[in-house]
């Protein structure tokens, strides 16, 4: 399945892109997705962000079963 991954704020800077398509063989949990992503981008190791799947914030145990839109969202401090 194909995951359409979008990066925001400082996360986009750490991975040096705003979005990309990631191919995944079988269904995975969000925590597995996260650790795969850290292998690809070690800079994400201590990063703080929330993940939305198809525009809905989900927890680490959420299973990704089909093609979807994923957003990595860090908090912003500024005002």
């Amino acid at each position, binding site marked *: 399945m194909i995951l359409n991954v*979008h990066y*925001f*704020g*400082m996360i986009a800077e750490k991975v040096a892109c705003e979005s990309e398509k990631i191919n995944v063989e079988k269904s995975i949990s969000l925590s597995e997705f996260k650790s795969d992503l850290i292998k690809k981008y070690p800079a994400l190791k*201590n990063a*703080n962000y*929330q993940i*939305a799947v198809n*525009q*809905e*914030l989900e927890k680490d145990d959420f299973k990704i079963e089909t093609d979807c839109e994923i*957003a990595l*969202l*860090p*908090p*912003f*401090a*500024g*005002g």
Partner: protein
Amino acid sequence: MLTSKEKYHYDRHLKMEEIGQKGQEKLQSSSVLVIGAGGLGCPALMYLAAAGVGKIGIIDFDSVNETNLHRQILFTSDEIGQNKAEVAKARLLKMNPFIHVETYPYKLTNQNALNLFSNFDVIIDATDNFTTRYMVNDASIITGKPLVYGSVYKFEGQVSVFNYKNGPSYRCLFPDPARNIPSCEEVGVLGVLCGIIGVKQANETLKIILGIGNPLSGRLEIYKALNAESLILKIKRNDEIIKLIQDTKSAFETFDYDLFCGIEKTENGLSSSDFTNLIKEDSIQIIDVRQEWEEPKLVYNDLIAIPLDKIEESIKLLSQKKQIVVICQNGSRSKTAVDFLKSAHGIENIINLEGGTSALENSGFKF
């Protein structure tokens, strides 16, 4: 009740049946507290005042600085050095003499927050740091006030409405405070983005007061100024987290929000005055961990510029004999560098400049 002068003043609101005289009177009898009269607070305040919100509270301890003027549109260069809340009040009353503005020219703390919040209908989070954001969120939950949230990072902004009709809170979105997310002061921000996000906050506030439309409760809007794209994400309420805060109402006043957000009270940092003395002796090495474009530049013989993300690969440049002083804009990235070099590399002859170049500037240091 609206006077005939006020009816004329608000004519374009009154002409719409969705607002009308009834809605305008709701605005007149409503009260909104804006935390921070900065990049987000200024545009939000201008539209709330213009719309006729009857009582506006502004809390800000800070004074107007020249670097504020590219985005904080309530202020002029004549007002540099004056308290932001007071300057904002004078300007807003000129815009709309029919409203009342109350100023609180001091810091919001967990000692004064609950009392202050209880005097207002809606709270606007226009702050610039996580410590205050978590404090404002918790105080809104405890006092039962809707919270209109906005934040910015360079070219991107976030807006949401928290604690509204049993909706989620800021902690449901971000349960754990983030570490090392730089502020506008450190990485910059697009001035007009603050305007866009601040005005969206004003819009959400007016909808809540008027009871029209769909406030952004349970949803987070992310706006990307460079692509002119908006994304709306759904947020779920986390009852466990909210229950915990409501249960600890009495603990709120003693909770250490700085510590919670990773800001430790350091005994070991170097003060601006000690730094000023040391730099005259010419015996230290200075490591500047800011990016190369950041101002003001410090001129010193033994100074090496190493951005924070390059520090590990540049360790061999650090002096083994001299006292090393690490500096940045406000003392937070330099603190990270010092902690890292001490714990991961056992470097001992190293100290952080408390408050960074901002504190130096405030102490009258000549760059």
